[in-house]
C-alpha cells in the first residue's frame, strides 16, 4: 500500500495499530494491548495530525523509484515469515523461553508484593530502576520537543 497522501498514511497507521492491539488482546497481553491502543492509536495520531497542520498533505517532488522500496518490503516479508516458524504455538502453556527468573516472578509476586498483576509488579517493583530510566526518557523527549518548538522571545 503505497500512498503519497500523508493523511491516508496516518489513517492506515491507526488501523494497523488497532489490529495490533486486537492481536495482543487475543494473545492475552492485556497490558501491551492497552498501551498499543492508547499510544499507537490515540496520542500518536493526534500528534501526527497536529504536525500535518504545519505541513502539506501531499508529498511533492518525490522522484524516487518504487523498485528499491518494494524489493526491501519483499525482503522484510520473507525474513519475517522465515522467523514465524520459531514462534511458540498459539495457546501453548509451557513456552521455551521460560527461565528461572520468570518462574520466580510468577510464583512470588502475590506473596512478596501483594500485587496480583505480575506485569505491574515487575515494572514498578522488581525492575524499578529500568522504569526510572524509561520515565527519564519520556521527560527528556518532552523537554526536547519544548526546546525545538520554542517560539522566539519565550524562555
Amino acid at each position, binding site marked *: 500500500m503505497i500512498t503519497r497522501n500523508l493523511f491516508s498514511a496516518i489513517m492506515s497507521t491507526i488501523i494497523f495499530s488497532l489490529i495490533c492491539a486486537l492481536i495482543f488482546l487475543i494473545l492475552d497481553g*492485556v*497490558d501491551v*494491548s*492497552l*498501551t498499543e491502543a*492508547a*499510544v499507537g492509536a*490515540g*496520542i500518536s495520531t*493526534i*500528534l501526527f495530525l*497536529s*504536525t500535518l*497542520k*504545519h505541513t502539506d498533505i501531499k508529498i511533492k517532488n518525490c522522484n524516487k523509484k518504487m523498485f528499491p522500496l518494494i524489493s526491501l518490503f519483499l525482503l522484510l516479508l520473507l525474513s519475517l515469515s522465515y522467523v514465524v516458524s520459531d514462534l511458540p504455538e498459539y495457546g501453548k502453556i509451557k513456552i521455551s523461553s521460560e527461565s528461572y527468573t520468570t518462574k520466580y516472578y510468577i510464583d512470588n509476586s502475590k*506473596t*512478596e*508484593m*501483594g*500485587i*496480583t*498483576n505480575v*506485569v*505491574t*509488579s515487575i*515494572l*514498578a*517493583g522488581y525492575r*524499578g*530502576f529500568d*522504569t*526510572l530510566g*524509561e*520515565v*527519564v526518557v*519520556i*521527560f527528556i*523527549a*518532552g523537554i526536547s*520537543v*519544548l526546546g525545538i*518548538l*520554542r*517560539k522566539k522571545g*519565550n524562555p
Partner: protein
Amino acid sequence: MKHHLIPRIVTKLIIPLILLFGLYIQFHGDFTAGGGFQAGVIFAAGFILYNIIFGIKVGQSILSINMTKNLMASGLLLYIFVGFLGILLGGNFLDYNPLSSNSVQGQLTGVFLIELGVGLTVSNVMILIFYSFNCTDQEQT
C-alpha cells in the same frame, strides 16, 4: 470548533468517562491491566480532546504550559524521591520494604507512589507536546 453542536455535546458526555477510566487504570493497576504509563496517556487523551473541541485558550485556563512543565518535573522527582527514601530508611535505592513496618504493605505503598509519578510525568509530557505543536505566538506565554 465551537459551532459544531454534536461533537461538543458528545464530548461533554464522554470526557468524564475517559478521565474516570484513566484514574481507574492508574489506581487499580496493581490488580488489573494497566499502570501509570497507560493511565497517563489516557488521561492526556481526554484532556487533549477537551482542548480540540473547546479551544486551546479554554484548556490553558485549566492547565497552563508552565503548570504542565512543573507537574512533569514533579512526577519524575517523586519517583526519584521514593528511590532515595528507601536509602534514608535503611534499604537500597528503590527498595520499598522499609517504607512500612509490614514489608508487603511497604511494597504496595512504594508501587502506588511510583505509578503516581509515572502517570504525572507521562500525561503532562503528552499535553505539553500537544500544546507546543498547536499554540500560536500569543498563546504560548
